[in-house]
């Protein structure tokens, strides 16, 4: 009897334990689950055009003279490889696996908006022009182009014998079709907003296409990186993605990945080296680390600081700047953040240096406005305005001025799967306590964040990063009062006016001047607290060479080769 009793008792214990175990399991499921596939950081998206203004002077200069430069893309793209290509015939062949965090959002290059998709399909598709690793535009499907004096007519000459992956040569019809499709001329639905200014696309002869636009804008050329696809393929129900890039599409499996194979007909002589590249979707950072160590993936970007340290020694770990602007975005329309003094107080109160040290290992680049230092011509360093360390005295003064000497409560909305922003938020909450602001973090799911914060503008403050496409207008555009992307409700008539002037300016210096003014207004008005351009740490297997870092969100695999 005694044993029986004992048995029942431990049975109870067992049941309770089982229940607890299940609860833990369920709890974990939520936690790890979310950190998985929904990391589609869609708010940070690249329009995939770009220029590193250092050298873009060349291109802009060419615009002014109505004549484009850049003879053959291969020269600027891979001069070194072409030179050493023959003596190192053994570079060719092999396959690698690249770990990526996000699943593909669309296999249609014109409809894909997620940065995580664009970085992959950069290898499949090309536009008339494409970015190179220095941030210049090089000619791709086009071998040359001219822009008329008034900036309204673009004339592209097609490169000879560029072939699609299906073996067909790219014709003027294909280019016309592609441009009409993205600009909305085809069915009234523009797919890339900057290109909706296109009024007509005309075929002058079989190698020449003329594009007429409504508004002159010297930044528009960067939008012609839009993919050229075979005419009609946008309506073909069974079409596989077909482009002209160094790799062709083989297969895609949801949640598993996408496999690409070498394009033997690629127009850049000697490229690519690899026979096959698989982009494999890795659902959690922990798994990524294990897979790197186990050798099932050869390549992984956007490591956390601790992961980067764990991989030192066994892998090449390389830090490179991202083209993202991380900020504590403030809703300029809600009390008390509608008071410029309060926003300035917060700007003074934040210690950006310690944020950078704490969450980014000190690798980030501190910012004070919505422009990246890599856009050298346009960037102006405003870090002195509020300083990069906390100025609590000044902040308290401003708070008192605004009538909030005792502080207030504030909610910071953050997508909870973005570890980097969450950690930033925790540091900021502590720093804001110094001036009496009682901030709390509201962790959200990405879908809800998009709906409530970004679209609905129902928030006090939020931390996220906006990706810049390397045209200066891309990030500045959204702070116009009436912009549909102005989710912080920034209001400044002066800003709107100067922005319009910046867009219309055809002279590069004049344009740069306007953009500098815009950054200053945004900073002085403390539209939001811009923090940093975070660094990206990439782990690359020690057997790989040739990878090039781009100042935009792409992963170019065409120059990578295996050394063993």
């Amino acid at each position, binding site marked *: 009897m005694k*044993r*029986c009793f*004992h*048995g*029942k008792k*431990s*049975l109870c214990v*067992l049941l309770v*334990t*089982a229940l607890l*175990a299940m609860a833990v*399991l369920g709890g*974990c*499921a939520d936690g*790890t*689950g*979310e950190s*998985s*596939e*929904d990391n*589609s950081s869609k*708010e940070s*998206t690249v329009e995939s055009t770009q220029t590193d203004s250092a050298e873009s002077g060349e291109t802009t200069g060419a615009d002014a003279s109505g004549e484009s430069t850049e003879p053959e893309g291969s020269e600027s793209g891979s001069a070194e490889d072409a030179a050493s290509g023959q003596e190192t015939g053994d570079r060719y062949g092999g396959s690698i696996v690249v770990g990526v965090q996000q699943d593909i959002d669309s296999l*249609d290059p014109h*409809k894909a*908006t997620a940065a995580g998709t664009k970085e992959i399909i950069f290898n499949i598709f090309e536009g008339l022009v494409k970015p190179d690793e220095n941030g210049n535009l090089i000619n791709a499907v086009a071998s040359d182009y001219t822009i008329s004096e008034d900036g309204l007519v673009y004339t592209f000459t097609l490169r000879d014998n560029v072939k699609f992956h299906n073996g067909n040569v790219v014709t003027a019809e294909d280019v016309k079709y592609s441009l009409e499709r993205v600009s909305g001329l085809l069915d009234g*639905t*523009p*797919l890339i907003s900057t290109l*909706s200014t296109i009024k007509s696309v005309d075929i002058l002869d079989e190698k020449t296409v003329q594009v007429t636009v409504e508004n002159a804008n010297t930044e528009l050329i960067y939008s012609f990186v839009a993919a050229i696809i075979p005419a009609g*393929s946008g309506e073909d*129900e*069974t*079409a*596989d*993605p077909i482009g002209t890039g160094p790799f062709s599409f083989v297969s*895609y*499996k*949801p*949640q598993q990945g996408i496999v690409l194979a070498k394009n033997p007909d690629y127009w850049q002589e000697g490229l690519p080296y690899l026979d096959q590249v698989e982009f*494999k979707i890795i*659902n*959690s950072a*922990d*798994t990524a680390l*294990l*897979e790197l*160590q*186990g050798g*099932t993936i050869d390549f992984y970007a956007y490591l956390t600081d601790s992961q980067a340290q764990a991989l030192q020694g066994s892998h090449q770990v390389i830090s490179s700047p991202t083209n993202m602007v991380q900020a504590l975005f403030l809703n300029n329309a809600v009390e008390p953040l509608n008071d410029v003094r309060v926003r300035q107080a917060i700007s003074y109160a934040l210690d950006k240096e310690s944020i950078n040290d704490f969450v980014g290992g000190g690798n980030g680049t501190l910012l004070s406005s919505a422009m990246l230092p890599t856009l050298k011509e346009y960037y102006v360093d405003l870090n002195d305005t509020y300083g990069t360390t906390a100025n609590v005295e000044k902040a308290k003064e401003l708070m008192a001025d605004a009538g909030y000497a005792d502080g207030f409560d504030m909610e910071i909305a953050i997508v909870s799967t973005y570890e980097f922003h969450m950690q930033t938020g925790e540091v900021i909450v502590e720093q804001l306590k110094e001036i009496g602001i009682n901030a709390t973090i509201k962790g959200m*799911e990405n*879908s*809800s964040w*998009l*709906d*409530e914060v*970004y*679209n609905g503008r129902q928030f006090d403050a939020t931390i996220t990063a906006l990706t810049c496409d390397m045209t200066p207008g891309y990030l500045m555009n959204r702070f116009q009062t009436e912009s*549909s*992307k102005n989710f912080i409700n920034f209001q400044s008539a002066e800003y709107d006016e100067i922005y319009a002037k910046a867009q219309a300016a055809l002279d590069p210096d004049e344009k740069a001047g306007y953009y500098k003014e815009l950054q200053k207004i945004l900073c002085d008005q403390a539209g939001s607290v811009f923090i940093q351009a975070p660094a990206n740490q990439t782990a690359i297997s020690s057997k790989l060479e040739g990878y090039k870092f781009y100042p935009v969100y792409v992963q170019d695999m065409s120059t990578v080769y295996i050394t063993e």
Partner: protein
Amino acid sequence: MKYLGKKTITLIMTLFLVSVAAFLAFQIIPGDVVMSILGTEATPEREEQLREELGLGDPPAVRYLNWMTGVLKGDLGVSYRYSKNMNEMMPVAELIGDKLPVTLWLAAVSLALIVLVSIPLGVLWVRSGSRVLDAALGVITQATMAVPSFFLGILVTFVFGIILKFFAPGGYISYQEDFSGFLGYLLFPALSIALPKIAMTARFLRNSMLTEVGTDYVRTAYSKGCTKRRVMYVHVLRNAMMPVVTFLGMIVAEIVAGSIVIEQVFSLPGIGRLLISAISTRDFPVVQILILYITFVVIFVYFLVDILYRVIDPRISGK
């Protein structure tokens, strides 16, 4: 027969109610479908076009009816999130059909491990009578049950994958390509799932058997002159299995519905991972079908457990 009919009606009713609930739930939770799909960079025209394509302009009742008629006709709809090729979205049936075998095989391998190890272990535990063994098993099972499964998963990966190199971490092999390689890879996630369940089942069985050992019919059996072995296997085990079968049923339902954590840790493209990503991206067509699937599995497994009861203990069908 009457029993079967009753069960079938319950199944249909439940599935119907669950389908309504699943549908309603997604009308309430925040998060706009179109925003989720397109992000922040698409043009307003494209957003409008997509809203129309997905039929989101219709009232919820109409959309439910459209969806339900489709499902009844065998058309499960297409995913909002995953592409099949450049211009088409992936049909839900194809999407799930591709992932279901992974989860089912994982469940099968796990269950095999659980049954093959836990039942002999439970019996041995009771039979041995050794205090040392009793204490040792008590501690080991307790500890195994306490480890959270994601941690166990990482531990298994680390020990068997990285140190012993029995398998390549994350090196999932598709069942379409190499079936035995696939099963070999599944062994390790299955082990991670099975370990705590083995401990639970063994303890459960032990306790259940100990309860039976003290009952009158066991004394009768002994006094009839039955050997200890016969009493244990024929009388005690059979009766002790009843609660264990229920417990195993719960486990099966849980694994077949998708072992979310383990699928994440081992990068297995199964149902659990699909469910999580479908919920977070508001891929309703996929979520709704998965919820129906899980409901069906749970009800069906309990139905099987019911049948098993009758096999093990004929008294039940007599009642």
